[in-house]
């Protein structure tokens, strides 16, 4: 009995110590300004700083998905972020360190992890997933955080400081449709079945389908699913019964494999157009590989490795055991844009959060050397780009090749 009491008391004391220590750790250091610390270079000496810079090290946050539905993509984007910052500095002075946390694609987890990292970061290099970005929007705004989402939902462009890396899903899919019309894969008055996730991502994609449908007299058959639904048989059966001429997807890779496989099984041999998250190279090892190669077209904000052989080589050298997806280009591209923002802020002599946010807002005509589609600028509520690449699955690293270089489809301006 005595032992029990002692144990309880001990546990209570330990718990109290842990709480106290943690609380101590999370207290923000007093505001410091005028110089990033002791022996900074010439540039560093004249630059204003506040949160997230210690000495000549800038700390950026990464909220990614390493264990949830977009894990394959999250891993590659994050690796590419790391790879970029290993080789690049801000203002030739500051090195960048990333604080990488895994949300598992759960918004609540994302919010908790962010509150843990917030006192120590200057900006967010990456936040994966529309729901998590939306959940964190009020905090990003309040904390003046510049953030690059690995998501392309329209609502994200409404968040001040959040820079969608390419066209939003509606514009992206509309560019996909434009390509299909150009290639004669789709004609006016056709019927299209659209499978989409509930929530921002899926519904924004559907908005693209509906806008094109209105202009070209298409009939859209929408089928909403949850991220955990894996079997697309019922939806494809419904499309087959309706005699669809094409299928549109705003889902995750597993649903794409199921949809393509089932469509082939049912003899529904129609083109499939998807937004960029629908594809992962791992699918080409699965049973739906041939169906995907035959019918899938992906509208994408990034190019493929056939246009970026050096990046592929570099990535494979750094991560030899990973099968690289196009997330590598997304990650490398978004880091390149972040570098341009931070360089501009540094040149303005203001690397505080506010200074970084101002530099972000002033950024225009961003060029990443063909990694990402040309970005016009980050204006609230406007798609940052009107262009997309069109990719097709193939047995090459990254699993896809470019069949259409970055272009602005006929419906893009109307939607942007």
């Amino acid at each position: 009995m005595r032992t029990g009491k002692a144990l309880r008391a001990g546990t209570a004391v330990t718990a109290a110590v842990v709480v106290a220590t943690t609380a101590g750790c999370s207290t923000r250091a007093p505001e410091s300004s005028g110089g990033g610390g002791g022996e900074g270079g010439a540039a560093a000496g004249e630059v204003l700083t506040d949160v997230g810079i210690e000495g000549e090290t800038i700390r950026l946050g990464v909220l990614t998905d390493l264990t949830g539905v977009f894990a394959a993509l999250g891993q590659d984007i994050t690796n590419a972020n790391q790879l970029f910052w290993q080789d690049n500095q801000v203002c030739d002075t500051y090195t960048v360190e990333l604080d990488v946390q895994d949300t598992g694609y759960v918004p609540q987890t994302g919010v908790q992890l962010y509150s843990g990292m917030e006192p120590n970061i200057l900006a967010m290099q990456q936040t994966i997933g529309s729901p998590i970005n939306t959940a964190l929007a009020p905090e990003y705004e309040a904390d003046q955080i510049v953030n690059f989402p690995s998501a392309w939902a329209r609502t994200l462009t409404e968040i001040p400081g959040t820079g969608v890396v390419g066209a939003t899903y509606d514009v992206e899919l509309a560019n996909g449709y434009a390509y299909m019309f150009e290639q004669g894969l789709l004609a006016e008055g056709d019927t299209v079945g659209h499978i989409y996730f509930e929530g921002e991502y899926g519904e924004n994609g559907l908005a693209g389908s509906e806008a094109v449908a209105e202009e070209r007299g298409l009939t859209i058959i929408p089928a909403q699913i949850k991220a955990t639904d894996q079997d697309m048989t019922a939806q494809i059966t419904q499309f087959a019964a309706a005699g669809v001429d094409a299928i549109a997807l705003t889902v995750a890779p597993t649903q794409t494999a199921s949809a393509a496989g089932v469509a082939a099984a049912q003899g529904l041999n129609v083109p499939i157009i998807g937004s960029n998250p629908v594809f992962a190279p791992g699918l080409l090892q699965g049973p739906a590989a041939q169906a995907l190669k035959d019918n899938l077209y992906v509208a994408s904000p990034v190019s493929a490795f056939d246009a970026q052989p050096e990046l592929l080589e570099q990535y494979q050298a750094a991560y030899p055991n990973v099968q690289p997806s196009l997330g590598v280009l997304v990650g490398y591209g978004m880091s390149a844009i972040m570098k341009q923002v931070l360089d501009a802020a540094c040149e303005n002599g203001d690397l505080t959060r506010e200074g970084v946010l101002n530099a972000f807002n002033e950024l225009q005509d961003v060029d990443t050397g063909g990694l990402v589609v040309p970005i016009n600028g980050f204006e609230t509520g406007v798609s940052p780009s009107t262009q997309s690449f069109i990719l097709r699955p193939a047995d090459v690293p990254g699993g896809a090749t470019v069949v259409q270089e970055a272009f602005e489809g006929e419906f893009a301006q109307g939607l942007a």
Partner: protein
Amino acid sequence: MTQFLSLLLNGLSLGAIYALIALGFVIIFKASEVVSFTHGSLLLLGAYSIARLSEPLGFLGAVLVGLVITALAAFLVERFIINRLRGAPVISLAIVTIGVDIILLTELIRRIGPDILNVPHPWGGESVRIGGIGITQNRLIAMIVAGLLIAAFFVAFKYSSWGVAMRASAEDGETAALMGIRQGRVSALAWVVAGVLAGVAALFLVGSPTPGVSSAVYATALRAFPAAILGGLDSTGGALVGGLLIGLAESFAAGYQENLLFLGRGFGEVVPYVVMIAVLLVRPSGLFGTKELTRV
């Protein structure tokens, strides 16, 4: 009509897989009076093991070893946790299984990580056309295997000494113990059988038309839960009927989504639970469950 038949066939094949999982729930409940929430992670463990072992052992070897691993995991949960807590309130045991489930699931998700694991089924993504209706070979084989396994189980349940012992234990544990039936052994065997059934279900769940092992496999087990409940948690026949009913309801609700728009999009997802509630309102013990009688 083609759409109807196609959805029917798809619903039945999905239902057959649900029935395998639901049968596991029921066997465990009958033998150890525990509502086991560990099934989702057991299912994922089966799928993960088979996918990972396919390369070194080949498909057949991976399936056999995968089933053994799943059965062994179920056995260990029973031996080291459930058996030691015998006599604890039923609710506590159920909560304990939730805990075990979360631990196992977290580890599996960590291990699966960013990969999309593929099980190289020899039948791949091939499909069969019956009349105008297409079904993947994987699902067709699943239906046949599930049918055979369930039939074999019913025979064993009725005629084997284990089946008799289990039925006696479920009927009246104390009397059965007095008659010399070793309840611990009956319970352990029940968990092993449930583990194997979950492993078999997993094998087919990660094949066409839902290729690839991901954490979403886990969610399927949760859908088999209403199947077991609406059939009657203590009825093996009920698990079969419940599984098929849920599979059909889900398939039709998703396939005729357009006609059900007044109920809102994504209605297919809630259908298993709506069917379960509807059945329970009419028959509180499920379709084939035993009514609890209290003599006063």
